[in-house]
């Protein structure tokens, strides 16, 4: 009983097994993402009342905050897979790390743009160099750096390892940037930063936010499954299991 988990993980890390696993789970993940997304958007856009101070503009929160959480969650997943990939050289870990990067970059981009659109009516400016915004921008650069470095290599596995190394260096850097910009901001007096506090949020605003958080997590899973499947096909293109799939999809 105690060792079926490592055994199952070991089996799962074999490309054809993971391909099937991902193929089975992906439609369910996508369905859950859509269901929770619909529930969350309905609750957030239609049911939740307008905010006392921010009016209806606050409704951007239902896409901005989940995206921000995803941008960091995905980086953590990417970092952990990168670590596994570097230390144990497991192919699947390399693929998961590299395929997470574009999804993470997408969510980071959404965070920055929706934040900017929310900031303009609320703070009066499209952008400000406070610690949180600057760290998020640096995070986007890190994602783009990982993607760029991965694609700069001819040998894909080597590229994955180099990009994984960069991802791990980046993990340490984001809190450092956050801290140093925070310090810099307090040095330059007079920056006006408003931070919307969630902890005092009323329940009818909170539950759609939680629903959207679940929706984006399931979406990440679905997208990651699809990307990983395709990348495994590409990486293992000479193997028999890939040939079988190519043949069976003939004519589609």
């Amino acid at each position, binding site marked *: 009983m105690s060792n079926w988990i490592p055994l199952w993980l070991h089996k799962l890390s074999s490309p054809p097994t993971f391909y099937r696993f991902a193929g089975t789970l992906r439609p369910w993940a996508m369905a859950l993402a859509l269901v929770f997304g619909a529930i969350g958007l309905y609750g957030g*856009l*239609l049911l939740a009342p*307008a905010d006392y101070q921010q*009016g*209806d*503009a606050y*409704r*951007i929160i239902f*896409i*901005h905050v989940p*995206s921000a959480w995803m941008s960091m969650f995905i980086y953590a997943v990417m970092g952990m897979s990168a670590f596994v990939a570097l230390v144990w050289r497991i192919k699947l870990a390399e693929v998961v790390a590299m395929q997470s990067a*574009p*999804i993470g970059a*997408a969510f980071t*981009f*959404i965070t920055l*743009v*929706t934040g900017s*659109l*929310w900031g*303009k*009516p609320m703070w009066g400016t499209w952008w400000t160099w406070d610690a949180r915004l600057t760290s998020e921008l640096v995070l986007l650069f890190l994602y783009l750096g990982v993607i760029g470095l991965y694609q700069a290599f001819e040998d894909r596995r080597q590229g994955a390892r180099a990009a994984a190394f960069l991802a791990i260096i980046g993990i340490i850097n984001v809190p450092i940037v956050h801290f140093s910009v925070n310090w810099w901001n307090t040095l330059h007096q007079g920056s006006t930063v408003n931070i919307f506090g969630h902890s005092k949020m009323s329940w009818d605003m909170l539950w759609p936010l939680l629903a959207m958080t679940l929706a984006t997590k399931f*979406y990440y899973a679905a*997208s990651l499954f*699809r*990307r990983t*499947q*395709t990348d495994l*096909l*590409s990486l293992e*293109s000479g193997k*028999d299991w*890939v*040939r*079988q799939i*190519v*043949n069976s*999809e*003939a004519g*589609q």
Partner: protein
Amino acid sequence: MNSVMHFLAMGGYADYVWPAYAVFFIVLIADNLAPRLRRSHLLRELRARQIRQSRRSGDNTLPTPPSS
């Protein structure tokens, strides 16, 4: 009809709220489509490669892979 207009107006913030939601959906739909495109290109290329390999190895039909 009035309530739909009221909803779309978003309390006067429509110019900010709707573009934000649009960005959210457009980016995620693009993220969904990109791997699909890559997969179809990849399968097409792998299939063509298999046909070329089978021609090179002499038979005119596609090799059926051993079931193991």
